[in-house]
């Protein structure tokens, strides 16, 4: 535990995003393990046309939410990012939104 506190940058490379304490350098506490929404609900098709679903994964300004916040697994996050970028290209989602 001691080494991880001294190197906050390496925390993001850890496979599980559950340990929020290291990222914020506060007292040790454990956030419950977030599960990938797509794997649990068994949604295979992350379509760029499904704007309602994609809206749940972009921030206010239109930025893609990072994996450690949304709890999405690796492969799904890649597919999600691809879908969001395609949707941005065809003006279904903004590149940069005004808040």
């Amino acid at each position, binding site marked *: 535990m001691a080494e991880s506190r001294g190197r906050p940058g390496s925390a993001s490379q850890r496979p599980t995003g559950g340990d929020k304490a290291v990222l914020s350098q506060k007292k040790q506490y454990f956030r419950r393990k977030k599960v990938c929404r797509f794997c649990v609900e*068994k949604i*295979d*098709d992350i379509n*760029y*046309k499904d704007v309602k679903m994609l809206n749940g994964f972009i921030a206010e300004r239109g930025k893609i939410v990072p994996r450690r916040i949304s709890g999405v697994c690796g492969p799904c996050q890649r597919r999600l990012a691809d879908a969001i970028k*395609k949707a*941005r*290209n*065809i*003006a*279904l*989602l*903004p*590149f940069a*939104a005004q808040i």
Partner: protein
Amino acid sequence: MRIYEELFIIKPDATEEEVDQIIEQMKGVITTAGGTIDKVDKWGKRRLAYRVDKHREGSYVLIQFTSPPETVKELERRLRVTDAVIKFLTVRIDETLKRLEKRKKHREKRAQRKATAAPAPAQPSVAAQMLGTPEPLPVPERPSAPTEPRP
């Protein structure tokens, strides 16, 4: 032959006829090159997420088709030339469809395997739950000596 999906946006001030005309033109391009149209979907007028060529709205049209790969270049060229089309996106979807099919089959097989693997132990408990009262287990008879009043 690959499966593609074309989504393009037509200017909002175009009439229904013009929209249909453009769709017919594109369908013609695909069919003359030896492709088949799988489906055509008109989404109608939608608000764009950002301004495209000074427009804030547009009519979206989705065409899914199967064709040899060279057709895409010709189709995109025609879309680029058409004034009324302000944006287009071509996506190749045959690999995605294949993957989805595989996943679906996998899931169905797994569900079937689960159903056949545990029917015997599963059914009685489910039935008992549905009835509400658990079945009383038969109490084994204890070999008891005839009870006599103790002196």
